[in-house]
């Protein structure tokens, strides 16, 4: 329990460290995947990159806005912005697995401004407003759980199709961990009134998930460096 006390007593510092870690991981992933996208123009890579762009934006915006708007109604605004970008990240990650069913292989002109993403933006906005009106995170948790159940099913099917690719198994595990993190978030918020041990554990789980994503991306692009040197 001493560790939890220590973290809680220094939570502002840990919040900064947490934001920096997640922000940096997202930045690295966006950088690496953007390079691959610029070469291949592959839509799946594009949406995967966008997911981490939104994740990074969500965490960094929450921290930066939190520094300036601490009082009055502003915390609700900060929460709304955070929720909006987190939901967009969830949609983008799921869509990176599904895009082939909805658009031609050559893709569409803009991956951020098109009809499908307009619907996603609208849904994200509706969920953020509903949570604001209800004064909870319930609708976001529900949507994220649905999104990650869908992503789990798709990544499990992908893994089953190509059992030789051990990386697909790792990706499936990461998606399941993501789902567990959202379930834990829901439980801690709904039944344990944001109990600090629960919150800190979720933060640790989130960092682990982002590191696993980074490991996957770096691992794939490391081979590239070897090929360049070889």
């Amino acid at each position, binding site marked *: 329990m001493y560790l939890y006390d220590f973290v809680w007593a220094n939570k502002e510092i840990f919040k900064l460290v947490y934001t920096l870690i997640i922000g940096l991981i997202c930045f690295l992933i966006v950088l690496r*995947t953007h390079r*691959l996208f610029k*070469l*291949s*123009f*592959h839509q*799946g*890579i594009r*949406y*995967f990159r966008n997911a981490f762009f939104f994740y990074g934006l969500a965490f960094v915006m929450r921290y930066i806005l939190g520094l300036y708007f601490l009082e009055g109604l502003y915390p609700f605004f900060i929460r709304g912005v955070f929720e909006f970008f987190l939901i967009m990240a969830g949609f983008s990650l799921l869509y*990176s*697995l599904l895009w082939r069913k909805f658009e031609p*292989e*050559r893709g569409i002109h803009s991956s951020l401004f098109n009809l499908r993403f307009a619907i996603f933006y609208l849904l994200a906005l509706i969920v953020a407003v509903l949570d604001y009106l209800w004064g909870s995170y319930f609708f976001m948790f529900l949507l994220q759980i649905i999104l990650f159940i869908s992503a789990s099913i*798709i*990544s499990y099917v*992908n*893994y089953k199709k*190509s059992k030789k*690719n051990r*990386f*697909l198994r790792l*990706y499936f595990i990461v998606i399941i961990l993501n789902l567990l993190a959202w379930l834990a978030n829901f439980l801690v918020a709904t039944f344990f009134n944001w109990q600090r041990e629960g919150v800190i554990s979720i933060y640790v789980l989130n960092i682990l998930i982002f590191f696993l994503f980074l490991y*996957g*991306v770096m691992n*794939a*692009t490391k*081979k*590239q460096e070897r*090929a*360049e040197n070889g």
Partner: protein
Amino acid sequence: MQQKSKREQKMAKKRERLDVIKDILMAVRENRSIKPTRLLYASNLSPQMFKEYINELIGKSFIKLDINKNEKKTFSLTPKGNNFLEEYRVIENFINNFGL
């Protein structure tokens, strides 16, 4: 003749866009500069599809069209196209690893 499954037939019929691009660029690289007709045969595409891909590859500066004094046209690979070929395996791995 052995009957192929529906999935195999579909896979044999439809090459992925990235595979087509790789095949075209490989053909250009192997020949250093190649005439449009030869490249069309090498790409194994219909003339219509071939035109679309070639326009896309020129647009993305992966290949360039050279016209000599006798007005003969040939395609050659640009450094960007060469870079794509070198990193093709990485891109392919990335897509497969994440199921994208």
